[in-house]
């Protein structure tokens, strides 16, 4: 459904954030994109949504295809209209609007009645923000904001939903709620998902396929189970050593070098 071919992305025409990345998200699947801080994950999502120019970023080469159609260079609005929505990193709510207005804006490209249905769904998913619906979004707690951000994207009835660290700042229970919702939407309405997540454990349980990106390049990819059993992944992303979850108290003061052999 979504395909990136040899994408190279530069900020300010000088800083190379992403190099030669190709990835594919098949219709109806959940794909995880993992990687350390500054690896270029958010950059890739911004590129897909067409909002890189806001930060002086530019796709220097390569192409992005949605359903075989080229969307690199298209207006963000057209991309949204094609059913591709994103939950951006750091929530990016409309701080001065109320919770409900935020959600309604999520349904901006949809009809009024679809938006009204959407509201019910979202409130059903996150009762906590229903309590707060007339409150100005900027004053919500971090986790509440994250719920609104996810809810807002769902309002647009995405065919392909991209989530940039949805579990960020959420209490464990809520994380479960969100991931259950994602799995449910994926199963029931065949919503395709591209998931950027730091909680690799959860991501690799949810996704069927995963990519690992470091320093702007894809270093490893494969079906989720296969990644889960990779030594490096276990060591650096899952926090296991020798098959056992290790306590952070015992983390060694030296680090093993990554080799990325699979």
């Amino acid at each position, binding site marked *: 459904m979504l395909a990136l071919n040899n994408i190279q992305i530069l900020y300010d025409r000088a800083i190379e954030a992403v190099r030669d990345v190709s990835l594919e998200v098949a219709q109806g699947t959940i794909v995880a994109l993992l990687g350390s801080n500054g690896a270029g994950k958010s950059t890739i999502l911004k590129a897909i*949504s*067409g*909002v890189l*120019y*806001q930060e*002086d970023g530019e796709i220097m080469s390569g192409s992005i295809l949605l359903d075989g159609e080229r969307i690199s260079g298209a*207006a*963000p*609005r057209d991309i*949204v*209209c094609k059913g591709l*929505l*994103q939950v*951006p990193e750091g929530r*990016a*709510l*409309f*701080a*001065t*609007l109320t919770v409900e*207005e*935020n959600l*309604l*804006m*999520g349904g*901006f*490209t949809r009809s*009024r009645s679809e938006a009204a249905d959407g509201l019910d769904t979202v409130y059903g998913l996150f009762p906590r923000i229903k309590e707060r619906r007339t409150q*100005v979004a*900027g*004053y*919500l707690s971090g986790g509440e904001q994250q719920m609104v951000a996810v809810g*807002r*994207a769902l*309002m*647009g009835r995405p065919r392909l939903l991209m989530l940039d660290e949805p579990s960020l700042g959420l209490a464990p229970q809520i994380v479960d709620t969100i991931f259950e919702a994602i799995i449910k939407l994926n199963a029931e309405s065949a919503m395709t998902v591209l998931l950027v997540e730091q909680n690799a454990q959860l991501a690799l349980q949810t996704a069927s396929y995963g990519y690992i990106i470091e320093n702007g390049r894809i270093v490893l990819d494969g079906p989720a189970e296969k990644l889960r059993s990779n030594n490096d992944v276990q060591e650096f992303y899952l926090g296991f050593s020798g098959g056992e979850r290790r306590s952070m108290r015992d983390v060694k003061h030296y680090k093993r070098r990554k080799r990325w052999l699979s």
Partner: protein
Amino acid sequence: MDFLLLLLASGLVSGAAYGLIAMGFALIFKSTGVVNFAQGELVMLTAYISFTLYSTFDLSFFPLMLVTIPISMAIGLVLERLFIRPMLGEPIFAIVMVTVGLAVVLRGITIMAWGPDPFNFNAGIPTRVVTLGGVPFYPAQLYLIGALGVLTAAGWAFLRFSRMGIAMRAVAANETAALLVGISVSRIHAIAWMLSAAIASIAGVLFAANFKLAPDLWFQGLRAFPAVILGGMDSVIGSAVAGLVIGVIENLFQGYVGQGLREISGFIVIIIVLMVRPFGLFGSKDIERV
């Protein structure tokens, strides 16, 4: 007629002028975050265009506005396309500066097209004095107050309830997020400029009908700026109310204290209000969550 009543009435008239001009400002600010330094010039230009329409076709007020408003909106659109849209995604200060440059250009163009001589322009409004509650008014003055009332109500309803109105506030709140939910930011900007130009033309024509049409009309833009702030930068209604407040205060001060304290009194009141309410009468507080 009572002196006080007279001052209040004339205060409302000049306040309505401030308020109308300020609303145009606030609309663009609210949806784009840009302080349009060319707002006064927009007011002036549209008034001159209306003047030409008036002298060519000899229309009365409402038909005149019926022609003027669409033309003004077209101008708003053209300006947005030509000057503002290419700056999309650039730092807000750069865009503000573009409006400063634009102001210079519009001022020059107005003088080149119409010359520096001022004109009498009654905009098809009768000039016979009418008396209301013992206070004499020119009809154009009543039109000015009326226009402010109507536009304030319309503006409030639009921003509060229409999806486009909410979208405008959304764009101002977070441009990237607006893009990500499929709001076309450039379209919102275009609409803001068109509506603002429409308001500007109404303000300009009525201002000129009351206070003559001259190429220093642009300065009223700067004069109305305090109203925008007093009302609260992001509140369209606020600018209308604040305009009236400033108008009345200025006139009362002039009437009872005098000695050129007119402007100063307005500013002093603003400073005092801002010390108590740092975000104006109706503005919302900056949201600072840490």
